[in-house]
């Protein structure tokens, strides 16, 4: 495992973000929180999960900085924190740029191949 301070480093934060996002339930919780804060009880209901199970997921999300929870209020509502998600998404932007631009060129190459590789067959048909 990682030393205690690890999760506070930029690398540790990103690891925590992706580890948290790797779970479908946690992604669903984030999607729910995107439409407004919610308590553990409110979150447990739609997911058909026990409150301790939801609390476990919330702990992971909180450590990743993806959510914050009100310490004082009795409901302790969870709310979405956008910064780590923005960081993670910026990292993916590199891949989006590279492959997005490349694939558009590939479309053109494939269009050209479709016509050039068809030609011999069409000529053959004409001969008949």
């Amino acid at each position, binding site marked *: 495992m990682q030393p205690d301070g690890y999760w506070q480093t930029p690398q540790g934060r990103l690891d925590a973000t992706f*580890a948290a*996002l790797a779970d479908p339930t946690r992604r669903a919780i984030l999607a729910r929180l995107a439409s407004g804060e919610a308590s553990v009880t409110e979150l447990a209901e739609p997911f058909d999960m026990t409150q301790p199970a939801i609390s476990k997921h919330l702990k992971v999300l909180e450590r990743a900085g993806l959510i914050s929870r009100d310490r004082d209020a009795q409901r302790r509502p969870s709310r979405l924190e956008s910064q780590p998600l923005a960081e993670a998404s910026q990292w993916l932007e590199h891949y989006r740029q590279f492959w997005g631009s490349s694939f558009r060129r590939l479309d053109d190459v494939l269009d050209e191949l479709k016509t050039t590789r068809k030609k011999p067959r069409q000529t053959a048909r004409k001969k008949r």
Partner: protein
Amino acid sequence: MFYPDSFKVSTPSDHEIQVSRDFHAPRQLVFDAFTQPDLVRRWLLGPPGWTMPVCEIDLRVGGRYRYVWRKSGVNDMGMGGVFREIVSPERLVATERFDEAWYPGECLDTTVFVDAGEITKVTITMLYESKEARETARRSGMEHGMAAGYSRLEELLSSIPAAN
């Protein structure tokens, strides 16, 4: 920049990045475009301004491939690897490593070509060896200076099932 709806970049797990896209061409043609050097060098260029002076592909299990990208005013960027699995025209598995070693270890790329009638669905999964690898890959992304903006959140979370 405009991207078609079928174009997706996601992180299926904390060690992987997945890129997928539909192409309106027969599967064999798409497979050829991914594996024949004279075709690959025409499109696998990333953002505008880059060329690919070196594109060598020895398409057999254990065979190597090598790509070098060039842009004026910038150092050449080279990378290569070894083919681990080749099932024409369905599947390719190859290692990937950049010369500059901007991430430690290797990355394992799996490319799957699915024949869906009029279109061919391509999915590339890049599996990083370590967490450090992902971090340096992230830093490289930052250096490219493309601020993502919060609008990208929706795309990042696109695989989320509805929470009702």
